[in-house]
C-alpha cells in the first residue's frame, strides 16, 4: 500500500521543488527577457483567438439559457447581471485557463519533452545555462502576465456575447442589459475572477514544464508527456476552481 503511494507523493514533491526553483529564479540573474517576450507572444497573443471564441459563445449560450428561466419569473431585466457574475466569477477564468491549458500545457510539455529526449536539456546545462532559468521561469512569468489579461478579455467578450443574444434575439434594450451587468458586479466577484488566473498560471505553465522535463523514452515518451500534462492541468483547474470558490463563498 505504501509503495503504491510512493510514486505520486514523489511526483508531487518534485513538482513543488520545480515550482520553488522557478519562483526563486525570478529573483536571480541572468534574466532571459527575449524568452519571456517570445513566450508571452506564444501563450498570450497565440491563445487570443480561441479565448475570444470560447468567451463569446459561452456568454451567448448563457444569455439564451438564462433568459428562459428568468422570463418565467418575469426577471429578464437582470439577465446582464446573471451573465456577468457567472462569467467573471467562474466561467471566464475557468474556460480561459482550460483553453490555455489545452493549447499551452501540452505545447510546453511536447517542446521541453523533445528537448529532453534529444539531449538538448543536457546540452544546455553543459553549455552554462540552467534549464529552469532559461526554459521554466520565462514560461511561468509569461503565463502569469498573460492569463489574467486573457481572462479579462474573455470576460468582456462573454458579456458582449450575452448582449448580442439579449439585444438581437430577445429584444432587450441595450441600456438595460449593460446597466444590469455593470451594477451586478461587486468587488468580491472581480477579486475572485482575477485571483484565479494567477493560481491557474502556475498550473498551466509548470505542469507542462514538469511533464516535459521528466520525459523519458523517445518520441513515444513525448506523446505521453503531452497528454499527461494536458489532462493533469485540466483536472487541477477544476479541482482548484472548487477550492477557490469554497473560500470566496464562505467568506461572503
Amino acid at each position, binding site marked *: 500500500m505504501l509503495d503504491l503511494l510512493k510514486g505520486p507523493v514523489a511526483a508531487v514533491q518534485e513538482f513543488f521543488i520545480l515550482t520553488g526553483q522557478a519562483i526563486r529564479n525570478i529573483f536571480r540573474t541572468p534574466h532571459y527577457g527575449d524568452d519571456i517576450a517570445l513566450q508571452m507572444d506564444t501563450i498570450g497573443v497565440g491563445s487570443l483567438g480561441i479565448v475570444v471564441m470560447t468567451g463569446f459563445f459561452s456568454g451567448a449560450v448563457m444569455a439564451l439559457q438564462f433568459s428562459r428561466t428568468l422570463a418565467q419569473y418575469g426577471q429578464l431585466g437582470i439577465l446582464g447581471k446573471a451573465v456577468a457574475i457567472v462569467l467573471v466569477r467562474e466561467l471566464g477564468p475557468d474556460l480561459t485557463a482550460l483553453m490555455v491549458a489545452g493549447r499551452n500545457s501540452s505545447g510546453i510539455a511536447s517542446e521541453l519533452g523533445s528537448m529532453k529526449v*534529444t539531449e538538448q536539456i543536457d546540452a544546455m546545462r*553543459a*553549455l*552554462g545555462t540552467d534549464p529552469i532559468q532559461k526554459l521554466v521561469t520565462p514560461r511561468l512569468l509569461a503565463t502569469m502576465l498573460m492569463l489574467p489579461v486573457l481572462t479579462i478579455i474573455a470576460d468582456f467578450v462573454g458579456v458582449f456575447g450575452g448582449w448580442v443574444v439579449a439585444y438581437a434575439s430577445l429584444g432587450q434594450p441595450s441600456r438595460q442589459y449593460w446597466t444590469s451587468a455593470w451594477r451586478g458586479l461587486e468587488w468580491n466577484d472581480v477579486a475572485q475572477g482575477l485571483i484565479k488566473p494567477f493560481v491557474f498560471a502556475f498550473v498551466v505553465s509548470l505542469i507542462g514544464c514538469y511533464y516535459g522535463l521528466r520525459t523519458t523514452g523517445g518520441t513515444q515518451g513525448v506523446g505521453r508527456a503531452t497528454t499527461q500534462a494536458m489532462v493533469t492541468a485540466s483536472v487541477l483547474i477544476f479541482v482548484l476552481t472548487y477550492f477557490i470558490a469554497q473560500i470566496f463563498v464562505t467568506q461572503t
Partner: protein
Amino acid sequence: MPEERQPILRFEHVAVSFDGVAAISDVSFEAFEGESRVILGAMGSGKTVLLKAALGLVKPDSGKVYVFGRDLTVLPERGLFEVRSKIGMLFQESALFDSLTIEENVAYPLVNQESIHCPKQEVHTRVVEALKFVELGETLEKFPAELSGGMRRRAAIARAVVTNPPLTLYDSPTAGLDPITSHTIMALLIKARDVTHTTTLVVTHRYQDGNLIANFRYNSEQGQLEPARNGTRRDVRTTFMVMQEGRLVFEGDQTRLEASTDPYISKFVKHHT
C-alpha cells in the same frame, strides 16, 4: 603519489544508478593532460553515463569525480558551470538547439558561459573560425534541421571546441554515419586534438575509430591525417578502456588490448580492419 602531474579527470569508485538499476558501478580511472582515451563498449554498457558524470550532468550515488582537481560531486549546479566551461562535449545525437540557427548554436557557449568572458564583438569572429575549422563556413544562417546528419555532427563539434576547452568529450561521434562521413568526423576530432593539444575522451563502439586516434595525427601543413611514426608524438598517448555492463573491464594501451583473450574485449578488436 609518485605521479608529478595532476590528473585532469579522475574517477574514484564511481557508481551511478537510475531507478535502482546500476548504469555504472565502481569505475575508477585517471586521465592526464594531453592524453587520449578511447572508451569502447556495447550499447547500454554505461559509456554515455560515464561522460555525463564527468560533466556533472548526472550525480554519482557513490564515489568521487574530480575535474581539474575539483570535486564535482559536492558542487551545486551553479558551481558546476565554471568547471563545465572548460569542457567541450559532443552529444550522441549532436543535441543542437533546433530553434536556433547554426551560428547561434555555436555562439551559445560563448554567450552563455560567464567564465568565458568573450567580448560581444568577438563572438561572430570566433563562431566563423570554429565553423571554418569543421569546414562548415557557409551554414551560419541555416537551422539544424536543414543540415545532413554529418553536417549536424560537424556543427556540434564546432560548438564543443569554440571555447578552446582543455578537455573534450565525444559521445559516439560516428554513430549512425556512413564510413566516409565517419572518417571525416574522426579526422576532425584528431585535428581538434592535435591543433589545440587537448585531452580527449572518445566514446565509441567502433574499434577503427580508436585505431585512428591511437595511430594517426593531423598534419597541419597538408591538412590531412598521417600515420604517427614512433617517437613523433611521445607527448601524446592513447589509452583504451572497455566497458561491460557498467563496469570497467579493461584499461591499457592498444598492444595489450589486441592481445587480450577475453571474449567480450576481443569482440571489439576483431572488427579491426
